């Protein structure tokens, strides 16, 4: 799959598969083309050439179907600060056509598992960042999507909450939800089943963290990433 903006090859003939139930790490330096690729996979823009299917649906012709079967969460936008936790859940549940009764029932359960029973009627804006992010993730998979896209979900979050967040990711993967995640924390790359590293619009590496480390003779994903990204020639986003 490729995406060009004029002469600029934001995404340059990338090829990969993500297995069902897999946690797939999508790494790359700033401006490597991650965001562009992710937008296409979420049904927000069309590729210039090549093929891609998400949850079995074609990115050219079945964007609406894709949107119905994926979840999305990013660091920048997640929930409405001026709605309460329950109202946010109701809203997102409603968007995906879940019945009112089911929303109420599963919403209550969700709030309990997150330990937010007391805060359920509080505005999301008053929650600490870590809780917000955990809640945002739960909301993103509330409609039980086939695959969830997470764009730097743990940016700025404290180390304990970050791990609790990954606990939730593992749980979702165990339940069969495929997880497609970008991150700047290299230790988080280790938590993925497989990792791609994009450099200058191309997929430069794709394997399990263990094998990538062996291939690049490094003892951490940090080293792997550094070796790859250093080669980047691109300077603009």
């Amino acid at each position, binding site marked *: 799959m490729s995406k060009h903006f004029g002469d600029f090859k934001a995404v340059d003939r990338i090829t990969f598969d993500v297995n069902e139930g897999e946690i797939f790490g999508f790494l*790359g*330096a*700033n*401006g490597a083309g991650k965001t562009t690729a992710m937008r296409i996979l979420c049904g927000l823009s069309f590729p210039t050439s090549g093929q891609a299917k998400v949850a079995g649906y074609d990115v050219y012709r079945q964007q609406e179907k894709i949107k119905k079967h994926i979840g999305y969460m990013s660091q920048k936008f997640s929930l409405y600060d001026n709605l309460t936790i329950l109202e946010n859940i109701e809203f997102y549940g409603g968007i995906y056509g879940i019945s009112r009764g089911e929303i109420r029932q599963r919403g209550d359960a969700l709030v309990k598992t997150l330990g937010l029973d007391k805060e359920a009627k509080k505005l999301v804006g008053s929650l*600490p*960042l*870590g809780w917000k992010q955990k809640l945002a993730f739960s909301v993103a998979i509330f409609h039980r999507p086939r695959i969830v896209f997470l764009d*730097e979900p743990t*940016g*700025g*979050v*404290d*180390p*304990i*909450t970050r*791990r609790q967040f*990954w*606990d939730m990711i*593992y749980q979702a993967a*165990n339940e069969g939800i495929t997880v497609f995640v970008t991150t*700047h*924390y*290299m*230790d988080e790359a*280790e*938590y993925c089943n497989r990792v791609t590293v994009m450099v200058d619009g191309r997929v430069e590496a794709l394997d399990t*963290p*263990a094998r990538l480390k062996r291939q690049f003779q490094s003892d*951490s*994903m*940090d080293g792997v*990433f*550094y070796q790859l*990204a*250093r080669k*980047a020639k*691109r*300077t*603009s*986003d």
Partner: protein
Amino acid sequence: MMVEVNNINKTYNEGEITAVNNVSFAVDKGEIFGLIGPDGAGKTSIFRILTTLLLPDSGSARVDDLDVVKDYQEIRRRVGYMPGKFSLYQDLTVEENLRFFATVFNTTLEENYHLIEDIYQQIAPFKTRRAGKLSGGMKQKLALCCALIHRPQVLFLDEPTTGVDVVSRKEFWEMLRKLKQQNISILVSTPYMDEADLCDRIALMQNGSIMSIDTPANIVESFPKNLYAAKAGDIYTLLKQLQGDEVVESCFAFGEALHLTFKSDQDADNTVKRIVAEQQLDDLEISRITPTIEDSFIRLMRENATETETDGK
């Protein structure tokens, strides 16, 4: 002392939100001092108090031996500041930005060129490009040049590496090391724990309070327990099982391994052997390791959490 902070407090919304809670620390001349902590730890409020942009509710602070409240005008002459959300003038070119800030600080690009030369050379090929069209790493270098142009005594960098990729982050810390040699004091904040090792001294912050201040080495050394790393083929199962094991005090994922401590370090070797035997997982390996700053941070967070809980009861 370049920076001295004594029992600073700052609240917002008429005391409803505590941003800075009784914080004290000092930064030596030529030292790189790091405030390490997640969003909401109070780092930005401290920066704003020290750069005279906010008044503390109580406590006092001095920068280059000047009071942040009384002598704010003089302090503003002497410090360089890169705010967290600083994004330069997107519609001005690299050079225009730099020259503008030079003039604002009563100097010229030429006068202090030697100071920024190393950094500026990296972005010089793009000097006619508008700042908005630069990559994250380039923007950050330009911002650093702008903060340095008047040869400040002390540099305040609020989360300069947030949202920047690993390569640019490494380059950025390289630059800070070079500036240190010029005897410029640097106060820097970051949410990335792995950057803590690059500072001379650090303060670990959480919810407005400092949990610990020391050199990175000393902080790691004062980790009170033996720390073990556990690896296995199915790491998620291992995590669940270890978290359920009653001899285990803490266990959390850490990159490719799990980091764990036991309730008692006595006879720990036997405990490890027992676990390996009991767990029956493929490729299970447990070995003792040196903690990292992040391990210390997590530990301090947990200790504080239990303290506040017992306080509450």
